[in-house]
Structure formats: C-alpha cells, structure tokens
C-alpha cells in the first residue's frame, strides 16, 4: 500500500469529498490554494480573522443545505467561537426538535510538543466531549485520518475533527479508492494479554513503542485507539479490559475531567468490567499546567514513554502475568 502523511491523507479526503458532493464547501483564515484552484473561490474561501462569525456561518450554511468544512486553525482559536460551538452547534438540532440537520465539520489542530507554548498548544477535546450534541474525532494514523474525515464530512451532524500537531508529518499506509472509517468504532492497534493501554492520537504511537519494548520482557500489551471520542466505543475498551484486567490511559491533555477520566469512569462503573479489574486503573496525562515553551519544561509537562512504562509496571505489580512469570 502507498504511504502518505497525515497531512496528505487529509488533503485527499477534502478533494475526494468536494468532488463527490458539490454542496461541500470550506473556509478558514488560511488560504487553501490547491483546493481553491480545483474548486474555485466560491466553494473554497478564506475569511477575516473572525472565528465566532465563520463558525456560525458554517452552521447556518449547514442548516440551509450545504456541508461546510470549517477550519479553525489551532484549537485554541476555537475558543473565540465557543458560543457558536456550545450554545448553537451542539444544541441546535435537539433544541429545535430535530426539524433540520446540520452537517458541518470543524477541523482544528491540537496538542503540544513543538514549543508553541500555552496559547498554541492544547488538547481540550474533553471540553467538547462534555457537550451533548457534537461528534468528536481524533485519529492517530494517516489511514484513519483520511477515512474519518471523509465520514465526518458525510455525517449529518456537527462534528469536531482534531488533528494532532505532532502527527501531521507522520507517514503510514492508506488504501486507494474511497477509503472511509466508521465514526464510533475503536481500533485495537495491537493485541495483547496483560494490560490494556488506551492511547489517544500521538500517544497511540508511543504506547505501541512501549508495547514493543516490553514485549521483549514477555509483557503483552493491548493498545486500543478509540479514534472517535464521541460516540466513544466503550464496549471495545471494556471488552479489552475484561480480557487483560488492567487499564492505563495515555493522553497529552491534563488529567482533570479529561477523556482519560471518562475512559476510567466508563470502565469502573460497568459491573462486569469492574469485577474483571485486577489493579487500579491509571491515567498518564499531562501535568496540570498550560503547556510551557522551553523544551525541558514542555517535555516534563507532556507524557513520555518512561511514564507509560511506569504506569504499566504499576498496574502489573505483584501480578501473575506473562510478563512476570517470564522474568
């Protein structure tokens, strides 16, 4: 299979969906020359720096028959538009009794790790997950990125599509043709017996790397990638935890009220899964600070492989696992 970057995969998705459906339009503050040349400046626009207005414009155009893809740029810029997201987009369908659909996709980049500091490095997906009424997507591979963006654009609901900054240039195989990935289905990126590690975005890769290295000790890690945060494929995660009896969740958002908290809650409130647990569940998250600029501090603020490994060892402590019997 051909290998392309996440950025290329996303651009392919945009082109294919715009070709497929002329009601797909797109705008944001940054020009998209490739798309504009192909589809013209009526369907591909750039806007003034007015996130609140152009978010609402996307919503209004969606309610009037179009399928806008609105690019916020960095997710931190979306906070300027938060009223349109919270009070309008997430509520509009239900509040009006379901009389219209609002097929709008909001794209944004997310995450830290590239020294852009607090106002350009944030991973606030849980704030959007908390709102009933938005679908939330966070892919970790080029194939998932392409397939999920295509699904998001075709979905008839407001959808927020998060693009992890550190994954933009990462390559991976992407199937040819109309490759879509269903919204709401988690993916087991690596099967294992001893510990379930749920990773988000960049931390799927990091979890896989740790799993590789622990495999040498005979510790068998299952890496689950939710891919979609709303709807969350709770059953896939629970099923994995019921097999392994142990859960570590890794994400670069601070822990408090995070997606990681939610996954812990989904697992521990389910009686069957709770009973299968052999160790306390663990979060490996960012420190509770705005992301700092200096590389030494930023590295300390964000999770790393050592922390993931330590959490895995904590949940394995005293456990009669493959890993431990092999040692």
């Amino acid at each position: 299979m051909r290998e392309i970057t996440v950025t290329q995969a996303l651009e392919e998705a945009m082109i294919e969906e715009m070709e497929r459906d002329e009601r797909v339009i797109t705008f944001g503050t940054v020009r998209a020359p490739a798309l504009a040349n192909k589809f013209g400046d009526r369907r591909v626009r750039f806007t003034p720096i007015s996130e609140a207005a152009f978010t609402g414009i996307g919503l209004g155009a969606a309610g009037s028959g179009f399928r806008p893809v609105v690019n916020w740029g960095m997710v931190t810029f979306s906070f300027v538009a938060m009223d349109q997201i919270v009070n309008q987009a997430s509520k509009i369908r239900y509040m009006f009794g379901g009389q219209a659909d609002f097929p709008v996709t909001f794209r944004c980049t997310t995450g830290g790790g590239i020294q852009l500091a607090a106002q350009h490095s944030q991973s606030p997906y849980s704030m959007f997950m908390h709102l009933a009424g938005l679908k939330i997507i966070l892919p970790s591979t080029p194939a998932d990125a392409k397939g999920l963006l295509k699904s998001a654009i075709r979905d008839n609901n407001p959808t927020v599509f998060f693009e992890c900054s550190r994954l933009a240039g990462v390559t991976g195989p992407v199937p040819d043709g109309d490759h879509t990935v269903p919204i709401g289905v988690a993916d087991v990126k690596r099967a294992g017996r001893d510990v379930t590690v749920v990773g988000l975005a960049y931390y799927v890769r990091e979890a896989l790397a740790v799993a590789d290295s622990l495999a040498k000790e005979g510790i068998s890690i299952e890496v689950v990638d939710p891919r979609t945060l709303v709807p969350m494929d709770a059953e896939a995660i629970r099923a994995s935890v019921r097999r392994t009896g142990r859960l570590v969740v890794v994400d670069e958002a601070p822990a408090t009220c995070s997606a990681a908290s939610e996954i812990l809650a989904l697992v521990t409130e389910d009686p069957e899964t709770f009973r299968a647990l052999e160790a306390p569940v663990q979060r490996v998250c960012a420190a509770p600070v705005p992301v700092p600029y200096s590389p030494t501090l930023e590295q300390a603020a964000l999770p790393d492989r050592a922390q993931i490994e330590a959490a895995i060892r904590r949940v394995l402590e005293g456990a009669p696992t493959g890993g431990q019997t092999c040692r």
Partner: protein
Amino acid sequence: MSQEKTELVEILRQMIMIREFDLLAVELRKAKRIYGALHPYVGEEAVAVGVCAALRPTDRITSTHRGHGHCIAKGADINRMMAELFGRADGYCKGKGGSMHIADFAIGMLGANGIVAGGMPIACGAALAAQLEDQGAVAACFFGDGATGEGEFHETLNIASLWKLPLLFVCENNRYGAGNAVESVRPEADISLHAPAYGLPGVSVDGNDVLAVREATREAVERARRGGGPTLLHCKTFRWLFHAMRDVPQPDMRSADLLAQWRGRERDPIARFEGVLAGRDLVTAADVQAIRDRVKRDLAAAVEFAEKSPYPDPKDLLVDMFAG
C-alpha cells in the same frame, strides 16, 4: 379586494396577531400555564411585519429571545407556536425549545436565539447558502440595540459586506437592552453609524411605521438580490412591557410618562397603521374589529390545540439528538 389591499390588511392582521399573542402569553405565564422565560414583543410589531412583508417564503431569517413576532410575521403556525409554549409534543420543537427557541425551517425561520447576537452568524451562513444557490434568495437577521455590544455583530457585518452576501441586518432599537437604556451602553445611540466602516449602506427608519419599514426593506432586499450585498437597517421602536418575565415580570424602571408617550395612539404602530388604512378607505372600524375578533378566536383555538396536545413522553428524551 385588490392585491394591494389584501396585503395591507394582512399586515394589519399580523400586527394585531403578534400583539394579542404576546399579551395572551403574558397572562398564560402569570397563570403558570406556560413555563420558563417570556420576552413580549408588544409595541415592536411593525418591525417584524414590515420586514417580513418584503421577504419571500424562500428567504430565511434568524430571530432573538424576543422572537414570537418574527415567527408570526414569517408565517408560522400559531397552534404549533402555542403548543411549544405549553411544552407539548405538537409544538414546533416538540416541547424541547419553548419560547426562546421556536424555529420553523420549512418557512425559512431558522430559529429564535437565547444568546444575544447568537443568530447573526447563522443568518450570515444562510445568506452564504443563498449566494451559492444563486436563486435570488436573501436572509435577514433580527437583533436588538443591546446586541450591538457583542463582537458577533461586528464580525458578521464585516464578512457579509466583504463577500457581498444577500443579508439584511435588522436592528430593532427598542431603546433598552433589559434594564439598560441604549445611551448607557453605547457612546453613539445611532446604530446605522456602524455601516460606513464596513462599506455598506446604513439606513435608519421609523420602526413604528410598518410601511416605512417595508419600503426600506424592499430596497435593501432588491439590492441584495441583485448582488449588491448587505444593508444595515436601523429600526427605531420601543418596548412597551417589561424586558422579561418568569413567574413574575422583571421590574420595569422606566417612567410612566415615557411609557404613556409611546403607547399613545400617535406612536402605537398598530393604531397608526389602522389610521393609514382608514385614511385610504381600505378598512372600516368594523373591519378592524372583525380582524381582532378573528385573531382572538384563532388564539383561543391555539390554546385549545396546545392544551389538547400531550406532554412529550419522557421515553422520547433522546430522540432528535443526532441525525441519521
């Protein structure tokens, strides 16, 4: 009856309907037969009706927290509006929205909005859709004088003008945002003053003169349909009643004198328009009385419709959340 006369009489009927609807809603709310917050449009009828009289059914509007007038003027069904106020399953939003969230997408009414200025970008999106569809449709957003304090007002003016969108900005300057007089929250009371900085026409109009509002709207709409872009229409009117009520009305600190001035026959938009019609021999006092009677009968029927409609079934709580 001539086409012109039919239209004018319908304008009168709508204004009377709006007034009676909201006066009735106040009574219903006092009696706790309806719920939540209520913002009566009484006294401002000429704005909604004058604007919507210049729109087509395929044109789209967004509204505000004070939205009943806009619904009725755009052609909403008062039965379903009333059922919504009663929180019933046959309401426009199946009881999920209430007074502040009535919408009827089928007639181009894209929703009342409980967030000040929140509807303006949405209307701008509808105007973008209209421009892309290229069928000559326009959009209009209603907003209050208070809403001009919000950044979304400014952002939307800028983009709509830049893209020459077929959008009509209708400022309902009723002189107050809740308890605050417009002079106390804006250094310049004249809202049309914003237009030049955005390169669009700003027009001030007597918002209690329904024909003047219709005329100003027609001009703006024609320009918009021709690709000439948006207009900022500043309609000067007055809120007759309290800002809002829940179980009881919010205190209204305005002087009795001021209220009396605006409620007098010379300023009351309905009385004035009745005068115009009578002066042109288009209606008699009996005609007006007949309209009023019909409005009251229709409203009584709407209340009956609403009360007969069941409350939504709690089992349907999750219905309408996501589209398939």
